[in-house]
């Protein structure tokens, strides 16, 4: 088990300015499970990643894997930007990586099961540059798993992948995590992926605001929610509250979310022909809904704003 115990980290900039990136963060991640670390940019996810991978020195608190420091030899890392040598072949990348870990590797020694799962058989002599983004990610994962790590840490590994490649990559990740009993820490802002993880640790302004199984986080929202988009939503929310026990939540200036209900129930209270209503949609609740309920602002908006800046 990976134990993150009360870690704090402050960046000291020039001219004496200091930014507290992490503030007393504690959580556990279990073997055989994918634990997603989510949160808006600037919430401390990347600092956590850098601390776990040893790229930053711990200032306060502790990080332990089964009671010991997770040294680099027990660690597999997949970075947001690829750490591959694009001029070399797939095998050469694996070969050189193994040497960094003190292992000489021959093609015949490559774990067949790993190559099968990652569908890299038959691509070992291809130059990395000639592979698609999805397959480059698989080579990256193969590299990280080649040295048989106990802890696998991935930082935004879906960057640049389309939905199909992302889903395929995540399925492989889930498979190897379970099959090898790995402790997998996935830093991401892909909420749809995080929903499929075994556990979600939610970061906000350097602290952990939730640490649960995705289903537990969303249990309060029920199986389905209804989202109404339009104008004068405060009046509408008041009318719904007065005439039913449906709980509503503003998720945007022009959107009202109704928890644990159905479209049919809502249409008995709300007149869809009302000109102030632009759209009514029934859907499953998301982690975004949970994040808004907890923080009062949207996680993806924060990501978008920072990326645009």
């Amino acid at each position, binding site marked *: 088990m990976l134990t993150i115990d009360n870690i704090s980290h402050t960046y000291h900039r020039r001219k004496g300015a200091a930014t507290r990136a992490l503030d007393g963060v504690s959580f556990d991640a279990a073997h055989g499970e994918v634990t997603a670390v989510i949160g808006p940019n600037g919430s401390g996810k990347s600092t956590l990643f850098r601390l776990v991978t040893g790229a930053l020195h711990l200032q306060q608190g502790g990080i332990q894997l089964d009671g010991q420091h997770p040294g680099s030899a027990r660690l597999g890392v997949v970075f947001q930007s*690829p750490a591959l040598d694009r001029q070399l072949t797939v095998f050469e990348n694996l070969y050189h*990586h193994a040497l*960094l870990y003190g292992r000489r590797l021959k093609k015949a020694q490559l774990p067949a099961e790993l190559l099968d799962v990652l569908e890299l058989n038959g691509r070992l002599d291809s130059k990395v540059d000639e592979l698609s983004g999805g397959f480059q990610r698989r080579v990256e994962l193969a590299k990280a798993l080649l040295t048989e790590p106990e802890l696998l840490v991935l930082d935004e590994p879906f960057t640049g992948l389309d939905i199909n490649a992302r889903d395929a990559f995540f399925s492989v990740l889930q498979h190897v995590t379970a099959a090898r009993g790995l402790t997998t820490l996935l830093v991401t802002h892909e909420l749809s992926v995080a929903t499929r993880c075994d556990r979600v640790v939610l970061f906000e302004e350097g602290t952990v605001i939730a640490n649960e199984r995705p289903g537990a986080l969303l249990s309060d929202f029920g199986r389905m929610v209804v989202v109404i988009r339009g104008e004068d939503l405060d009046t509408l929310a008041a009318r719904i509250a007065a005439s039913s026990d449906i709980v509503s939540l503003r998720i945007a200036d022009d959107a009202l979310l109704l928890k644990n209900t159905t479209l049919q129930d809502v249409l008995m209270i709300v007149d869809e022909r009302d000109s102030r209503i632009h759209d009514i949609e029934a859907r499953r609740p998301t982690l975004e809904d949970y994040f808004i309920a907890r923080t009062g602002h949207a996680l993806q908006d924060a990501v978008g704003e920072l990326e645009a800046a």
Partner: protein
Amino acid sequence: MTAILLPTYSLWIRDLKHFIRQRSRVIGAVGQPFVIWIFLSAGFKNSVNAGGADYGAYLFPGIIMLIALFAAIFSTISVIEDRKSGFLQGVLTSPAPRASIVWSKMLAGTTIALLQSVVFMVLLPFTGLSLSWEGIGLSILILAGTGMTLTGLGFLISWSMSSTQGFHAIMNLLLIPMWILSGAFFPPEGTASWLGVIIHLNPLYYITTLFQKAFFAGSGVSVAGGPSVAVSIAVFAALFLLLFITSLRLVRKS
């Protein structure tokens, strides 16, 4: 020991693969010094007093030094490329000792410098010089030391830089004057006194003089004046240690 040997080997061989697979780099590395030697020796034949020796022959070891200088230093551009491509982050989070990064880059730069220099030496018969095997052996040894030292200089600068263009600009600003004032291009004797001071402050002057003395040993061409072999070796060794230790500290700190 294996803990540092295998990672060093891995990173060294990888850099060599890059060099060999870039055909244009190989052609440029061999072709450019040849062209420079032909044109400079023809152009300055009657203008430079090379102590009685044929100017083309005098310049020959200087061109070899130029090859080693540029090959060694510019090989460290790979440090910037590795950082930009993301490859370096994988190395830094691996158990590979940080020293293996410095050693591998120094070895790769030296190997490339030696390969290019030795290929250029094929032109020796055209200089009219007859060198002793001892002189050639010593020359290669000094070239290896030069490669290690100058790769250290390149490493130190490239480790702190994020742009290959910036690295090119800084190194050209530093390298060309260093080479011109190394005694490779013209003997320092008889130059203006202020230039003489700068030449004596240039560490490459001591390395080049040492190289010329080894190169011309037994050839009939004498390298008169200049610093003694002992002083040259002392400056050479001090510079190597300074660059190596500083590079090591820099890498361990990051």
